[in-house]
């Protein structure tokens, strides 16, 4: 397995270079360094001298991909792309264009994102699986049909509606929880209840329908009939056997998102005032902060690759027939 992981990590390098190349090309197709300087300087009158000084200070005075003024290796190495990429591959994210340390910002903002994403993910997963199993238990009944209709209805409504409705109902009308905000430690619990509940509820429709189809495939298999013949209760059959065998396809979709959980949720964090990473990249794109954009795209790619490797590894754990070689 070790060789497999090493191989996958080596394959990741050209992918990351490619992602980085596309990020550079796309960003500078839309924004010139002069535009970036104007956006960052925020002056009412921006003079060419100010722009030049800003570009020199941030290294944006170098050519993007090819430096015709340099000679030898310098043609390639004395470019913005190479200079910045080398730092990225050593996970030195450097400074944002507004002058803040990106690593420090990510470290500070990932915890609030995790505080909301992790419970939403775990509770959502457990709830969706439990409801799906319950529906499978009552398959074909009125409860099954009604639940599926409700699931489709939940899916059809925008997540934003749940957020605003939840805030109005639980905070504005009933005064149960703060409408938005965040605190560290145990005090943070009361701020997280509402966003987590809304996150879980908004995901019930899609999650339940997906898991139900997986479990329905399993429920008619021979091993289920054998389990019942042994006299096991339906609960034990579902949770002990169907769930375990249905986990493999679930893992495909679930494990891959685990590493990216700390990247946060844009809308949820924005409405609930959670100081997470959800809006970090979007804000950076809006303010033309390339330092953050390149770091976050790179980090996102790395985490996705890690997620895919973890998915493969988890297969071997849950299904002994799978061998990674």
């Amino acid at each position: 397995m070790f060789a497999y992981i090493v191989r996958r990590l080596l394959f990741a390098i050209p992918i990351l270079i490619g992602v980085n190349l596309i990020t550079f090309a796309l960003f500078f197709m839309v924004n010139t360094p002069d535009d970036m300087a104007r956006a960052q300087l925020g002056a009412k009158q921006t003079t060419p001298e100010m722009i030049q000084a800003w570009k020199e200070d941030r290294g944006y005075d170098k050519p993007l991909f090819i430096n015709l003024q340099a000679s030898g290796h310098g043609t390639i190495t004395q470019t913005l792309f190479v200079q910045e990429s080398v730092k990225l591959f050593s996970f030195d994210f450097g400074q944002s264009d507004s002058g803040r340390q990106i690593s420090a910002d990510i470290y500070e903002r990932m915890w609030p994102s995790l505080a909301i994403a992790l419970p939403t993910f775990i509770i959502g997963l457990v709830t969706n699986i439990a409801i799906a199993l319950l529906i499978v238990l009552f398959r074909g009944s009125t409860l099954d049909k009604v639940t599926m209709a409700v699931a489709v209805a939940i899916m059809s409504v925008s997540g934003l509606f749940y957020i605003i409705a939840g805030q109005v109902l639980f905070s504005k009308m009933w005064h149960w929880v703060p409408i938005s905000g965040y605190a560290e430690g145990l005090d943070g619990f009361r701020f997280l209840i509402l966003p987590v509940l809304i996150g879980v509820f908004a995901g019930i429709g899609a999650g339940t329908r997906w898991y139900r189809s997986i479990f329905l495939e399993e429920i008619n298999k021979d091993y289920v009939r054998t389990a019942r013949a042994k006299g096991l209760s339906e609960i034990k059959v579902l949770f002990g056997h169907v769930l375990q065998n249905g986990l493999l396809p679930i893992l495909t979709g679930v494990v891959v998102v685990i590493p990216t959980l700390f990247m946060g949720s844009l809308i949820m964090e924005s409405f609930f005032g959670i100081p997470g990473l959800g809006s970090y990249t979007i804000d950076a794109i809006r303010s033309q902060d390339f330092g953050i954009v390149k770091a976050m795209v790179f980090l996102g790619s790395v985490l996705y690759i890690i997620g895919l490797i973890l998915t493969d590894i988890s297969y071997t754990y849950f299904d002994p027939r799978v061998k990674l070689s």
Partner: protein
Amino acid sequence: MIHRFSGLFKQTAKRAIGLVAFSLFLIVNISQASNWNSPYSDDKLDHQVYYTSFSSPPKHLDPVISYNSNEWTFLSQIYEPPLQYHYLKRPYSLEPLTLKSLPRIRYFDKAGSEVSADADVAYSEYLFELKDGVRYQPHPAFVKQGELFKYHKLSKDQLKSIKTVNDFKMTATRALVAEDYIYAIKRMALRQNHSPIFDSMKPYIVGFDEFSKQVTQAFKDQIKVESSNSKLSYFPLRDYALEGAEALDDRRFKIIINGVYPQFLYWLTMNFFAPIPWEVDKFYKQQGLIEKNITLDTSPVGTGPYYLAENNPNQRMRLVVNPNHHQEFYPTDGLAENASPELLNDAGKKLPFIKEVVYSLEKESVPLWNKFLQGYYDASGVSSDSFDQAISISTGGNMELTEQMLEKDIQFLAQVQPTIFYFGFNMADPVVGGYSEKQQKLRQAISIALNTEEYISIFLNGRGEPAQGPIPPGLFGYQEGEQGINPYVYEWKKGRAQRKSIEQAKQLLTEAGYPNGRTKQGEPLTIHYDSLDSGPDSQSMLNWYRKQFAKLGINLVIRSSDYNRFQDKVRKAKVQTFSWGWNADYPDPENFLFLLYGGNAAIHTDGGGVNGANYDNPEFNRLFEKMKTMPNGEKRLKVINQMLDIVRKDAPWSWGFNPKALALYHSWLKNVWPNALANNTIKYKRIDMEVRDQQRINWNQPVIWPLVIVLLLLLISIWPLTKAYRARQNTIISSNKTEAGGQQ
């Protein structure tokens, strides 16, 4: 059977107890705060805390670079430039902040002899004398161990326990000295600091440009030698002399200005001129601190009434009263005519009243508005979403608070801002530009057709006033009533300005050579409008513009682009018409009339000028140069009126509107008075804590019955579900048996 039901009952009871216990846990946890929905951990406080919000994280808190109102909201409470605006007086007037008195100004000719202000002045000398007893907030940068600074060379061990600048065990302070102001001015000249006003100040402060070139190059060389960067490397600015700014001793300093520039005093109210102690600058240039985002750009150090106790730009900023703040008192006079006499209730009392300010980041209007209604914010603006809830328009067209607001005893203030949003014509364009009578008439006709009153009503809920010229209300040169109207667009009828009819606009258009909006070739006149608005939300506004031009038979073609492209087009004069705006830097008409000065035209300044309309009328330019250095008075007003006559006739802008800012605040917040130019106003405000605490409790009593119903429903549903499960189990077993029997 009885045994099975007894087991079922026990299971159900266990689940019910578990559910109730969990609910109790939730309730207990929530009720740790006095109100369940309180967004604050501890809102029972023994000192005055002001709760407010901010909408976007501040990027820069270093006064040398910060030029954004979002940032100045914080900075102006922390830093103290030499001057400030009087809190109550209108029109805006200056008063000393850290000075004993307003600076003494002397004028000199080329030979160095002192002359009067209206003589041939070669340079002006501003002499400043500092107040006694002004000291900096406690800060680790000032801590000394013997002759050396204790924290200027931090070791890795020392840095381990440091997360913010407030984590240092020891702090110290020192008195404000004149050299700190000079140091701040010198910092502007260092290009690596990216001061946004250096190029504006360069022509005025004597020797500033030469000084900048010298220190910028020296710093570049230093960085090269050290293989460092501008963030990390400390440059000894004190070793370089600046001819136009000099500390005479610890209490006095002087600034020398080329010629006469009366507006310079207004610049001295801005944070760019706030004092910076060199020790602080040096302290922050440490690798270990920079890695933790502890820099002068994130952790300001000032002499103001507050210091930054918490800096989390993505969640909360918290200011706490500066224990070293000098003696400052609430004004005893200057109450404006329309102001409430209650504003002088605290006259002569020591400032600040509020001991702590908590700013929470609110990106969305829904939570912001609801927290204000719940009493968790002391004041709020009025967004479009909440306008109808807050404000009703009376039959007389006046804005009034709605019943809901009155019930909560919410107060309301409206003020026209010293800001203008205009519709500009590119005067260099062959169709809409030019200075001939016909070209003037085309722009005048369009100005009449663009119904600003309708725009304000539809898109701003009435929050604005149509502009009659470039100078907004409240500034010298603005005139109310008949004499202040733009006679090319308005008529004075029944005691108010009324827009001229569309027929008059059509007549002007005919005289301009476009009868019914047609060219000589008989085709509809087509004009291009460059806009920043491109999203679906903007479509109604863009359609409105099309409709206004269609009234004249003109075909308006909209070209939407992003901000970069838009700016680029304006800079290169590649637009025909466009919309833009300007906020006052200071309350002087020069700050608005210079937007139309030919010397600032984009086409004459390689795109750097602020005159995007490229208006360049020699007579206007001549009058502008004369007016800009004149003191306010009859003579200056006469010149300004001449200038206004010229630009109104030329109509390089359709004058657009001056926005009106609405502020709502709770009855417990005292001494609220709008001041569009001053940002350091929190020190004057006061909070009646008892009233606030009581109202928060009254308004936020938790409604329990839905919780009880939910719990009951959950309990009740357990029984039928359990029963249904049993029935399902039996069905599956019997069907399995039947299946098995069939197979046998």
